[in-house]
């Protein structure tokens, strides 16, 4: 069941926001353009991909205009400088999540990072080096996910199970949009090889109690992969504090370029995994008869990497650090509380997910009675408001709550109360247009 937001009498109050929205907006060139016949762009789709500040765009341009070369190849000056900048970015990005640089693997995005781990676990079955078979998955083993995972943290595990004969199990959801941990100790058991769980749901906004899940997983000797695609951009993260074995996130959702994501893994675990993709620069010695692999992280970075994008992501990290991740988190919490109150004032609007700001991030999915989310989105778009509509790559979640789709608004550092007021006005306009009120 879904639940209607009702916090009568609270009203929506605008407490001062921790971030200077006006100054931040000036850093984002795209926010000064207009859409749909001159309307101000109200961008409430950062959960799909974030917009990029000029500092990030400048960093990429600087790389191409000054030191463009393939890193870790060649001895010319450009190659040295490109390698230096690439590896310096690894240090910066690692420090952002409290990790040493040798535990940071660059991938295309979170999706590829998760696939990397899933394929490494099945490649382990046939690895010729005994030490790379440590985490091999096979018949009788179990992989655990949750019902709130993005397809990116579901399909790779379904496929791993199909390749290896392992069994996929999952933790369900409660009516108020949280993980149901009642059967945690039976679902996660001595047969479990890996638990994959999101830190923050991309559709419900729920922030999950990782401590309890990770403690249980480690108690039975299972690895834990945390999907941080929706959390790393929005709150301070320290991998040591989380205590998982893997954390993945995408650059493009945290003000960085597309085409770069990160797999963080505990070094001893990474070191016991065979590669996913093979080819150039991930090798130790290559002979026609067979080859050996480099140590992590290079073992997992085959081919010339997305160098400019990595440097752009480091610039995004520096931009976020200058704002302060504590402030980013507090900013979004204030906006989320305000938005939940504003939506509660509109009859017919139902939030799918936790109804208050407790253990909840700035992703708000909702339905509007009598109006399909596509049609809500169309009316909002006509007013310059960009939201996401559909199943948000989390089809099991919308099915669980008995709706075909939702409309989702997500917030970030440039979001202000004016954006949320525009959203609320737009929803009322949709109700008027379709004659449901």
């Amino acid at each position, binding site marked *: 069941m879904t639940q209607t937001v009702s916090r009568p009498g609270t009203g929506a109050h605008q407490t001062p926001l921790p971030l200077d929205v006006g100054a931040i907006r000036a850093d984002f060139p795209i926010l000064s353009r207009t859409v*749909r*016949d001159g309307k101000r762009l109200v961008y409430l789709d950062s959960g799909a991909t974030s917009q990029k500040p000029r500092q990030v765009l400048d960093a990429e341009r600087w790389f191409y205009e000054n030191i463009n070369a393939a890193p870790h190849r060649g001895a010319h000056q450009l190659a040295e400088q490109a390698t230096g900048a690439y590896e310096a970015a690894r240090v910066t990005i690692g420090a952002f999540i409290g990790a040493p640089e040798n535990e940071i693997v660059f991938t295309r995005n979170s999706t590829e990072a998760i696939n990397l781990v899933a394929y490494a676990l099945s490649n382990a079955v046939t690895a010729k080096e005994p030490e790379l078979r440590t985490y091999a998955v096979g018949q009788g083993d179990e992989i655990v996910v949750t019902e709130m995972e993005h397809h990116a943290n579901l399909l790779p595990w379904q496929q791993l199970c199909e390749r290896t004969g392992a069994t996929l199990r999952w933790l369900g959801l409660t009516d108020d949009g949280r993980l149901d941990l009642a059967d945690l100790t039976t679902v996660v058991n001595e047969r479990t090889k890996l638990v994959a769980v999101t830190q923050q749901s991309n559709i419900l906004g729920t922030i999950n109690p990782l401590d309890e899940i990770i403690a249980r997983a480690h108690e039975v000797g299972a690895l834990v992969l945390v999907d941080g695609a929706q959390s790393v951009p929005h709150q301070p993260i320290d991998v040591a504090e989380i205590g998982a074995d893997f954390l993945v996130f995408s650059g493009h959702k945290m003000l960085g370029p597309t085409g770069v994501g990160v797999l963080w893994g505990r070094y001893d675990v990474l070191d016991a995994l065979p590669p996913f993709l093979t080819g150039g620069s991930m090798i130790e010695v290559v002979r026609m008869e067979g080859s050996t692999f480099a140590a992590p992280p290079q073992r997992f970075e085959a081919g010339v990497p997305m160098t400019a994008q990595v440097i752009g992501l480091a610039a995004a990290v520096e931009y976020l650090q200058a704002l302060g991740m504590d402030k980013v988190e507090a900013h979004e919490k204030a906006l989320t509380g305000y938005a939940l109150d504003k939506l509660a004032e509109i009859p017919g609007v139902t939030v799918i997910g936790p109804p208050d700001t407790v253990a909840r991030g700035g992703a708000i999915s909702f339905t509007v009675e009598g109006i*399909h*989310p*596509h*049609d809500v989105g*169309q*009316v909002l778009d*006509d007013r310059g408001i960009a939201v996401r*509509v*559909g*199943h948000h790559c989390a*089809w099991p979640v*919308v099915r669980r709550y008995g709706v*075909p*789709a939702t409309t989702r608004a997500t917030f970030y550092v440039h979001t202000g109360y004016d954006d949320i007021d525009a959203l609320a006005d737009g929803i009322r306009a949709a109700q008027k*247009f*379709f004659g449901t009120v």
Partner: protein
Amino acid sequence: MQLENMYQEIILDHYRNPHGRGLREPFEAEVHHVNPTCGDEVTLRVHLEGDTIADVSYEGMGCSISQASVSAMYDLVIGKTVPQALETGEHFMTLMQAKGDLSVAEKLEDELEDAVAFAGVSKYPARIKCALMSWMALKDASARAWGGQS
């Protein structure tokens, strides 16, 4: 407001009061089509008498455009032969590719009747699939029913 261009009154009428909705018997073929980007679904049955479409019955969930489109299609194809219905489908496809060019709609008025009202949808690439889903389902189902007969 550009909205009225897309949401013509005819479309909203079909959406609120869909024609021919519900799954009926007899039928020779049933198909289930989904729009994977948004989760919209339609289950559609075709009943032929000879080569004539005697009934199209359907259930589905989706946005106003997808639901109105299947209703308008129902009105257009009942009583047509399968080749005639497929030709009408081609005209509708042409309309959806018009990128909002109203002269295309004018030329197709006789063939498409109420369905020319969907001309405004062709300006919104993300919504064209919504309008086309039922026509794709009809093409699929009538090919199966037609094949099963011959």
